[in-house]
């Protein structure tokens, strides 16, 4: 395991030094954790989907997390959360490290390495026990997002006799690896800000959120091509190949949680200035019914990827000297294909013991682009919180 950023190291030292200074008043550390054992396989063909092949493996989503909470004062706590996973697209290490200050009953401020909250389940994607699916719909949750950032967040709650309003905002930065469309990026995100508004009226919940950040990605594979195009004086194409600009996320979530059934939905829209990454809209709608300890659920999810900014054409003569460069550039242009994916998921969750749940689900995925892929995935999971 590694601590991922220098700031996190400073904060870790700071937080725990602070706790040691006040060890007389601090309560005993409280340990808790979560774990998930997930396996799945594609059925009917050899198509690979996400990390699933036609054989059952446990590596893709299985993980274990450990959290420690320390009450320093009645209104100040420190939290650290460590994660370990075998998934090579996911980092093991420190996920949370924050001080949690509650100056008034209705206001809470967090400082440190925090989980992002782009969407409803973004901050607990690793805690499978917290939701009914084995994996929240990829059409929404596999968007270009990162799981944590260094910064500050504030939440204010207004509770009336009839309804509750929660307003939260955050500011920070991020520099780490991100997996998107099966590729690994290492973005440098500055001025990462966001605002979320949640209203609750009995069983009805509405969440609207907006997040944005200035994202800069240095891609080693693209660097030689960019240098070559720079040398032949094609500034428009050079700028189009640079991954540097603003990324914006919009989200609306609506859910109704009755005693033994629920309906949940989320719609998101991703917008940015990049020519090399797709933008698009995604949504899901999910319903479930609980009988005794069993929850049966059905979800439809949809995602449309589109490129609103096409790579400009190189204005170079097709001479033998330039042809390799033109071909390399055009290969990138033709690889940027728009696509549409939708899926149906039918699943069951069995809460057989307090803190333990078994899940099973089957998912049918249809992907249409310049190629068409139809595949089905069956998955099983054991979720545990302790």
């Amino acid at each position: 395991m590694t601590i991922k950023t220098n700031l996190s190291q400073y904060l870790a030292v700071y937080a725990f030094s602070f706790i040691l200074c006040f060890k007389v008043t601090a309560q005993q550390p409280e340990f808790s954790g979560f774990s998930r054992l997930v396996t799945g396989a594609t059925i009917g063909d050899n198509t690979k989907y996400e990390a699933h092949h036609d054989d059952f493996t446990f590596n893709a989503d299985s993980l274990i997390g450990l959290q420690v909470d320390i009450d320093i004062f009645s209104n100040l706590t420190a939290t650290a959360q460590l994660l370990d996973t075998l998934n090579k697209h996911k980092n093991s290490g420190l996920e949370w490290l924050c001080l949690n200050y509650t100056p008034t009953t209705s206001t809470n401020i967090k400082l440190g390495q925090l989980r992002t909250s782009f969407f409803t389940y973004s901050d607990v994607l690793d805690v499978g026990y917290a939701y009914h699916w084995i994996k929240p719909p990829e059409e929404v949750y596999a968007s270009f997002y990162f799981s944590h950032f260094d910064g500050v967040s504030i939440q204010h709650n207004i509770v009336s006799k009839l309804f509750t309003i929660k307003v939260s905002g955050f500011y920070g930065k991020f520099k780490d690896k991100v997996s998107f469309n099966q590729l690994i990026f290492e973005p440098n995100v500055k001025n990462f800000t966001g605002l979320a508004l949640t209203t609750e009226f009995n069983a009805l919940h509405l969440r609207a959120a907006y997040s944005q950040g200035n994202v800069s990605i240095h891609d080693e594979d693209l660097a030689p091509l960019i240098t070559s195009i720079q040398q032949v004086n094609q500034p428009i194409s050079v700028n189009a190949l640079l991954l540097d600009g603003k990324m914006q996320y919009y989200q609306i979530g609506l859910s109704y949680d009755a005693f033994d059934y629920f309906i949940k939905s989320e719609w998101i829209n991703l917008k940015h200035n990049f020519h090399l990454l797709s933008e698009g809209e995604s949504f899901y709608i999910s319903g479930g019914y609980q009988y005794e300890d069993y929850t049966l659920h059905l979800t439809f999810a949809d995602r449309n990827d589109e490129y609103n900014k096409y790579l400009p054409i190189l204005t170079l003569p097709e001479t033998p000297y330039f042809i390799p460069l033109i071909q390399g550039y055009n290969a990138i242009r033709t690889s940027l294909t728009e696509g549409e994916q939708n899926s149906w998921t039918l699943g069951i969750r069995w809460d057989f013991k307090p803190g333990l749940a078994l899940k099973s689900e089957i998912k049918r995925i249809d992907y249409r682009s310049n190629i068409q892929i139809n595949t089905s995935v069956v998955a099983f999971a054991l979720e545990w919180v302790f």
Partner: protein
Amino acid sequence: MKSLTKVVLFFSFAITSVFPQDHIWVITQKLDKDFTLSKQQVRQIYLGINIDFTDEVTSSAITLSRKNQVRSQFNAQVIGLTESRIQSYWAHMRFSSRNKPPKEYDSVSSLLEHIKTTKGSIGYVPAQTVLPESIVVIYPEN
């Protein structure tokens, strides 16, 4: 226990007009100022958002342990969620560092004892429970 909860829930809707919201009382220590809570407020307090009763006293929920049937009644009548979905909710809150679940007590008597000695602490008991003089019912509103 789940079946019992559903029966309780069914009858709580079916005979509302005859016995309005009287299966559970939410209680707290008597304060200088009289007040009552709405169902929405009790629900929010039990889902982790506290409110100020007075300038000095803030709500702090305590609950009965899972083996206690009164808890199932409370989940059905006031929270409106099954026990397993409440546990999922608390997994979300705890591991996103937002809130922790209420402290649990094994019996109504131990819960009453805590409320008697802790200002702002709120709990629930079966309706018509004989309460000490220092404890008042704050839900349902009359």
